């Protein structure tokens, strides 16, 4: 465990809606979390659970159909962070802290993005400009945000950035199509790191890559985090990956965080039946060979969310209260840092919280009469 550091980003009761022809989609509902300096927060969930929307909302890069309808995104960037290996130069000045990103003006947002808060997208091929060399793209970021730097200084910084992510400096003159998928993703990370942001958001950064390349990039990211002490929000559908990378993990389902806690706690004892299902949704390389089961059913239509708990239709342990009352995040057990939004852990509604084995047994029973999806 890394020592507890001060909060850098506090998201409070964030809501994001999409307007569609067939109604309003509540993509992110009442999401709150805290990201500390140097921390890696992993967000996992199936497609459509709102994890990417959450990332875009935090950077205010939502597409025009989506809107933040409530909540705060408090950024506390003021506290001096320990100097990294790169010489720090004047970043954007974005006023006194904390800043609420949710209500920031376009002009101040531009100053904040890249210099304080950077994002790496899933497909680096689409996020890099195909007609500009890698060097020019880094140069562009520096010219825009740090007009004081000379051409020579910018070039030196670009070389330094590429070195940091393990790309040979002669690649400065390469166009994106001349690089392999892994190289492109490294280049995208280099560009994100150029202004030494305090927060980096990575949305499925390695999903399109092969396992060996993915492993290399993840190791690279961990080393860079240790060297530069940025905080990282890592979004993926692959929970097994997060367990190896993240300090804390939040599981999203149907727009809400249904469980969050330290990576170790979540791996040892997932509390929410959905978290258990996700954790056991992929075969393992080691251990006894046994028949495994997925999670039955499909996520609900977010235009018409069900009453109570959104997971109840798929949950093997659902009971009457799940249909009538909305579960909120609360400590799984009294005094626990692991939080779960599930009535099974509410002493008022359910006698005793289930053990991990109980959840496993319930899934096995349920899979006996399985309907396809």
């Amino acid at each position, binding site marked *: 465990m890394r020592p507890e550091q001060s909060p850098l980003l506090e998201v409070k009761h964030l809501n994001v809606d999409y307007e569609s022809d067939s109604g309003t989609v509540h993509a992110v509902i009442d999401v709150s979390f805290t990201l500390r300096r140097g921390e890696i927060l992993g967000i996992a969930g*199936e*497609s459509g659970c709102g994890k990417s929307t959450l990332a875009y909302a935090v950077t205010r890069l939502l597409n025009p159909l989506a809107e933040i309808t409530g909540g705060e995104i408090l950024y506390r960037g003021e506290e001096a962070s320990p100097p990294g290996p790169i010489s720090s130069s004047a970043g954007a000045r974005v006023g006194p802290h904390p800043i609420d990103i949710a209500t920031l003006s376009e002009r101040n947002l531009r100053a904040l993005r890249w210099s304080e808060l950077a994002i790496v997208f899933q497909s680096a091929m689409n996020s890099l400009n195909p007609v500009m060399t890698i060097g020019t793209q880094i140069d562009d970021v520096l010219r825009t945000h740090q007009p004081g730097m000379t051409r020579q200084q910018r070039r030196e910084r670009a070389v330094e950035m590429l070195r940091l992510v393990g790309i040979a400096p002669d690649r400065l003159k390469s166009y994106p199509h001349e690089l*392999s998928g*892994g190289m492109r993703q490294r280049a995208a990370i280099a560009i994100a790191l150029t202004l030494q942001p305090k927060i980096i958001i990575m949305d499925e950064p390695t999903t399109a890559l*092969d*396992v*060996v*390349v*993915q*492993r*290399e990039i993840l*190791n690279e990211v961990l080393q860079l985090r240790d060297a530069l002490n940025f905080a990282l929000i890592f979004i993926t*559908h*692959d*929970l*097994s*990956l997060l*367990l*190896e990378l993240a300090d804390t993990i939040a599981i999203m389902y149907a727009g809400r965080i249904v469980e969050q806690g330290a*990576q*170790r706690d979540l*791996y040892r004892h997932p509390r929410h039946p959905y978290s258990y*299902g*996700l*954790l056991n*949704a*992929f*075969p*393992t*390389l*080691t*251990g006894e*060979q*046994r*028949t*495994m*089961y*997925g*999670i*039955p059913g*499909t996520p609900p239509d977010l235009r018409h969310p069900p009453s109570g708990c959104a997971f109840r239709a798929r949950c093997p342990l659902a009971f009457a209260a799940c249909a009538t009352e909305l579960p909120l995040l609360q400590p799984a057990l009294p005094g626990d840092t692991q939080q779960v939004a599930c009535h099974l852990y509410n002493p008022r509604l359910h006698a005793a919280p289930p053990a991990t084995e109980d959840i496993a047994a319930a899934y*096995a029973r349920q*899979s*006996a009469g*399985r*309907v*396809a*999806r």
Partner: protein
Amino acid sequence: MTSGAPHVSPQPGAVATPILEADHLQKRFPVQGSFGRQLTVRAVEDASLALYPGRALALVGESGSGKTTIARMLARVYDPTAGTLRFQGKPVQFAGGAALRDYRRHVQLIFQDPFASLNPVHDVRYHLARLLRVHGHAKTSAQATQQALALLQRVSLTPAEQFLYKYPHQLSGGQRQRVAIARALAVHPQVLLADEPVSMLDVSIHLDILNLLRQLKNEDHLAFLFITHDIATARYFAEETNVLYAGQMVEGGPSDEVIQHPKHPYTQLLIAAAPDPARLNAEGKRVDALPARGEIPSLVNPPTGCRFHPRCPHAMPVCRERFPARTDLGNGHWTHCFLYGDGTTTTQPS
């Protein structure tokens, strides 16, 4: 519900004979280089494999390893540049027309992307009925409907009547993949070639589709070629696993044997790189070291000899000169690597 080991014994019985065999398959694709130069992509070199009824063979490799190319040669989407195919012991003639249709009656391919493999303007019934009629399993429209309903039931799309007239856009990814599987079953095949059948689907659905395929394999005694980039999935689904690197088969054998005791340095790298929470220690951190780096080389101008040698921590001068012959390690486990034997007969040109 079943528990315990899902696999039958790792070795085929003495009586088992392969239904589909590939010997020394090679595939080269001509591509147009810049300034009109003719280049050749050496996609697959010397691939040999055998599929047995009721058993699954997994082909594992990263993108560009040639696994899809092998499946497509077996499905006869395209013909190999060299090598032979034998179906039920008889050499396959690489001809089109009726011979090809007859071959496809026995060997079917399931694609990775269920969003692209179904025709968006036709309903589920059309996809199934057309095949049933073309292959002569159904003589009348009523028969076709009856058989289509039975197929939907087999892939657990129930109630089948509800799914019969749905269009692809009305189905979830998992349901589409089930329709694609039903379509492959429509011709009563003996061999199914599944090319990454779950990788486009949501994680929570993977196991259900894998379990369905396994059930079909056992019920119909189907021979399976199962292609995946995920070696853990190969272990779960297939009795045997072959590992491919840059078009060369580097290791193979019973899945558990290959995965628990990998011999080839590439297989070891692949397994070390795969995420696996079971290998985290009490502190929640990975303890095993993760060595080599790099990516699959260009197949237009591949490295000489063993194509893994530029990335291999154990590379020797001989690795650059020729591709090692197959070394048998016992228990059906084999590898092509000089670390385990000085293969004196090169099995492929390089």
